[in-house]
């Protein structure tokens, strides 16, 4: 692959990516950096999650907790719409928000099917492991 042109390399990476559910690929090399973004984001990022944190039972529903220390994002940096606004129907495995650590993005997955009751952590909030970030009902 090293002998191929940059355009062919990108096409090759895109073809590899198409076979996965990875939503965003960022590569930084000595020559520069580039991003490959797949369409259909909501189904895309979920496999990138850190081990899921067991939801903590609350009277109003289940609190979904941050799977890692990071900056909580309601939406993907390249998209306007929040991933899981209150009232949204979600299925187990859907991303409810993202943990951002520098250029790395990790999804916070819905542990079960349900409806988003409220988003507990502010967009851009620095949260620790285990911090409740989204409440499901």
């Amino acid at each position: 692959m090293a002998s191929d042109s940059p355009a062919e390399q990108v096409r090759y990476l895109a073809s590899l990516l198409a076979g996965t559910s990875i939503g965003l690929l960022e590569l930084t090399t000595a020559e520069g950096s580039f991003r490959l973004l797949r369409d259909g984001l909501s189904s895309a990022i979920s496999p990138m999650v850190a081990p899921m944190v067991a939801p903590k039972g609350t009277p109003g529903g289940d609190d979904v907790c941050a799977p890692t220390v990071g900056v909580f994002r309601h939406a993907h940096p390249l998209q306007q719409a929040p991933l899981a606004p209150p009232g949204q129907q979600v299925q187990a495995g859907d991303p409810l928000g993202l943990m951002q650590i520098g250029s790395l993005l990790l999804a916070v997955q819905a542990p079960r099917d349900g409806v988003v009751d409220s988003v507990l952590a502010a967009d851009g909030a620095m949260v620790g492991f285990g911090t409740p970030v989204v409440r499901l009902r």
Partner: protein
Amino acid sequence: MFDTVLIANRGEIALRIQRACRGLGLRTVAVYSEADADAPYLQAADQALCIGPPAPGQSYLNQAAILFAAKISGAQAIHPGYGFLSENAGFAARVEAAGLVFVGPSAECIRTMGDKVAAKRAMRTAGVPCVPGPDQALPSGPAAIHAIADAIGYPVIVKAAGGGGGRGMRVVHEPATLIDALAVTREEARRAFGNAEVYIEKFLSHPRHVEIQVLADSHGNALWLGSRDCSLQRRNQKVVEEAPAPGIPVAQVAAVGERCAEACRQIGYCGVGTFEFLYENDAFYFIEMNTRLQVEHPVTEMTTGIDIVQQQLRVARGERLSLHQADIVCTGHAIECRLNAEDPRSFAPAPGWITDWVLPGGFSVRVDSHAGAGYRVSPYYDSMFAKLIVHGATRADALDRMRLALAEMQVGGIATNLALHREIMDDSGFTAGGVDIHHLERWLAARAVA
């Protein structure tokens, strides 16, 4: 240069590092596991971030989580404290690769000292006295190995090159059992340290544990800060430490100390470190170097008047040492007792809630602790909850002060080794000074029979 330090540790040392940062005007980021969420020292940090569940592997040993916390908090340096990741060369390399400062020596220095055979070779080159035995990998043939052991003279000790801290070793008293002992130690070493290399040394039967504290900057300057005696041990765990090591001529310590400083210069060491020696029949024998801050550093602080943790941070910032060897004077005597939450008979860790907490005080009494009334000693980590340190004009003075301090101190709600320390301070062997590393176990065995 960094102005924010992430403290990748917990308990008393996390608080100790926080105080040193504060003294230098540095911001602190505390990271903690869910088990430590209520620890009072987190309140004093500029920022505190939970990095994982209680199990150390998922929190205090979780390199990715610690680097994540550094990234989002903007910390430019990571202080590993002692234990956990403090002597992990791979972690030091990752911290450096992330563009952060590891408050400690380079990954390469940690790696060299972590390989006990390589360390011994480096020490011999610098003229540091070592235990008799080769500083090369063992030959493969049994005859050649026997020849080495015969040349050293029995008893010998087989040690894992990747071991340390008293783990991965076996004493051999006669040639007939040598090859079997090698095979077993190799297998244990492979499993425990991922490195099957072993080496052979002369076994010293009644040594003291004496160590030299060093401090080095990144400009080629290295100092030694005096000796410590940590011979009172139980199962290779230090129980009481003191500075200086009693009864060893000052000139002899100085000669060895200067070799240690020279070794630091030769290997390009930066930071604080400890050269550990066995001391037997009036001679020093290097065993290993700890490339980190140590639990017992306060006794050296008390006798030298130097804040070792502040100095460690200063050299990590790239500052040149403002001290010279001639400035370093050991004054008086200091003793430290490690206070553990443990069953006084079985020594099993005894975590629990601290209900009563009365600290000793007065002239030259220091308590380094993160605990207090209402604090819960966690079952997940080391059971040490405080270090009691005293300084005196003489050793006898320090012993008197420690007895008073131990009598004053009260900890309720958990089982502790306070009573053991009170007994030790009245033990004729310890008070005379200069006992060997088996003294405490012998004394405990005798007490159990009585």
